[in-house]
C-alpha cells in the first residue's frame, strides 16, 4: 500500500520575464508577474511549479535567471525550469538561481550524453527529460488526439517544429537509462485543443519506464485529469491555460479528484 499522491503542476510560460498566454485572475495585481502567479498557485495547493522559458533572445535568457531567482526566493515547493536548456552551464546557472530541476528537451535528443552529464553532476532527481510526442497514423486518416488510432508516436523537437525518427517509447526508455529522474510528456496532438490528455500515449510511456511520467497537453475539463491518472496512468499532470483562465482552481480540481478516488494532497 502506498500513499503517494498524484501531483498537479501548473505551468508558467514566460517570455522576457512575463507570463504569456494570458491570465485572468481578478485577485492578482499583475497576472503577468511570475512571482505573483507562483505565490497564487502555491496558496491554492499546487504540488510543484514548472516555468518554461519561451524567450528567443539572449536578453530574454538573461531575464529568465532573474525571474527564477525572484520566484524561488519565496516558493517552497519544487520548481522545474525548462525551455532552451542546452548546456551544462545553462543547467548549473538555473539550479544556482533556485530551480530544483531542469527540463531538457531538444538538447537531450541531439546530444543524449548531456542527460548523463546532468544526472551525474546534479543527481537524477534534478533532471527532467521533456519529450514532445506526435502520433503517426496511416496515410489518409485524420489525426485524432487521445485515440488509440496512433500506431506509434514520434519525438518532435524545437517546440514541435522539427520531426525526428525517434520512437517516443524507445526514447523514454533510453532517457531513463541515461539517468533522467522524470519524463515530462507533452502530446503535440492534444496540446492546445482542450479536448483532454492523450491517455493512450501517456499509458504507453508510463508502462515502459520506471520513473514518474508527467502528462501534459490537452487539459480542458476536470474530468480530463481524472482520466489521465486513472486511464493514462500518469504520476503527475501539468496544465497552463485551464488554471490561468481561472475557470478551475487547483483546490476545486483536487476535491474533484479525491471524489473520484484519485489520491491527492489537499
Amino acid at each position, binding site marked *: 500500500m502506498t500513499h503517494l*499522491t498524484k501531483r498537479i503542476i501548473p505551468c508558467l510560460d514566460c517570455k522576457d520575464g512575463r507570463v504569456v498566454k494570458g491570465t485572468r485572475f481578478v485577485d492578482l495585481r499583475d497576472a503577468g508577474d511570475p512571482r505573483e502567479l507562483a505565490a497564487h498557485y502555491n496558496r491554492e495547493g499546487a504540488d510543484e511549479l514548472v516555468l518554461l522559458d519561451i524567450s528567443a533572445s539572449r536578453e530574454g535568457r538573461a531575464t529568465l535567471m532573474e525571474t527564477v531567482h525572484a520566484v524561488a526566493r519565496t516558493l517552497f515547493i519544487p520548481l522545474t525550469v525548462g525551455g532552451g536548456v542546452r548546456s551544462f552551464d545553462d543547467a548549473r546557472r538555473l539550479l544556482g538561481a533556485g530551480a530544483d530541476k531542469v527540463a531538457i528537451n531538444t538538447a537531450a535528443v541531439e546530444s543524449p550524453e548531456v542527460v548523463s552529464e546532468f544526472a551525474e553532476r546534479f543527481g537524477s532527481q534534478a533532471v527532467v527529460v521533456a519529450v514532445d510526442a506526435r502520433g503517426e497514423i496511416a496515410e489518409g486518416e485524420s489525426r485524432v488526439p487521445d485515440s488509440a488510432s496512433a500506431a506509434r508516436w514520434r519525438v518532435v523537437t524545437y517546440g514541435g517544429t522539427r520531426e525526428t525518427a525517434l520512437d517516443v517509447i524507445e526514447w523514454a526508455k533510453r532517457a531513463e537509462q541515461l539517468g533522467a529522474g522524470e519524463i515530462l510528456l507533452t502530446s503535440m496532438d492534444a496540446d492546445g485543443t482542450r479536448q483532454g490528455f492523450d491517455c493512450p500515449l501517456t499509458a504507453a510511456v508510463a508502462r515502459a519506464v520506471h*520513473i514518474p511520467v508527467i502528462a501534459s497537453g490537452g487539459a480542458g475539463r476536470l474530468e480530463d485529469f481524472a482520466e489521465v491518472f486513472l486511464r493514462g496512468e500518469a504520476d503527475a499532470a501539468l496544465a497552463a491555460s485551464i488554471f490561468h483562465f481561472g475557470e478551475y482552481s487547483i483546490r476545486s480540481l483536487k476535491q474533484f479528484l479525491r471524489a473520484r478516488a484519485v489520491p491527492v494532497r489537499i
Partner: protein
Amino acid sequence: MIAILDYGGGNVGSVRKAIEYLGAEVTVASRPEEIRAAAKLILPGQGHFGAMMKALGERGLVDPIREGVAQGRPMLGICLGLQALYESSEEAPGAHGLGLLEGRVRRFEGVFKVPHIGWSPIEVKEPRGILRGIPNGSFVYFCHSYYAPLTPETSALTDYGQRLAAAAEFGSVAAVQFHPEKSGDTGLQILRNFIE
C-alpha cells in the same frame, strides 16, 4: 549561527533560502573549524551515499560532526543527511555511515516507481521536537531511491511499498527523509522548530 554543511553535493542553496526566509542567520560551511564554530548544523543531502561519506572523510568533517553530536549541539539531517546517520547503505556497500542509528539503508524493491518522488503523508508518532505542531497525516515532499529502516528513534514514518523512517530524533540530533525546504508550510514549520 546555523551552518549548512557543504561537502560538494546536496541542495545547499534551497535549504539556505528557506532558512533565510524564516529570518535566521545562516552560513554555508565546508571546513572543520566552521563546523566546530556553528551553534546548529544542517546536513543536507542529495546524491550518492558513498560519495557523501567519502567527501566528508576527505574534508575532515566526520570528527567535527561527531564532536557536535557528543556535545549536544543541534543537528538536522535532510534526505541523504538522514541516511548518513545509519551504519551503511546498499547504495555503497563498502562505505561506513556515521553509525548513530542502527541498520542499513536499502533500495526500494518491487512494483513501485523508483525514485519515490512526490508528496506522501507522514504518520507522526509524537508531535514534539522538530515535529512540534505537525498534525498526523501532513503531506511532505519526498525524493529518494533508498530508504531507511524504522528504529526506536523514528519519530515519523511513511509508506511507499514498505514502511520507512520519514523522521528520526534522538538527543540533539534530528533528521528527515523528506525535503522540508520543498514541503510548503509544513516544511517551513519543521525548519522553524529546528531554528527556535
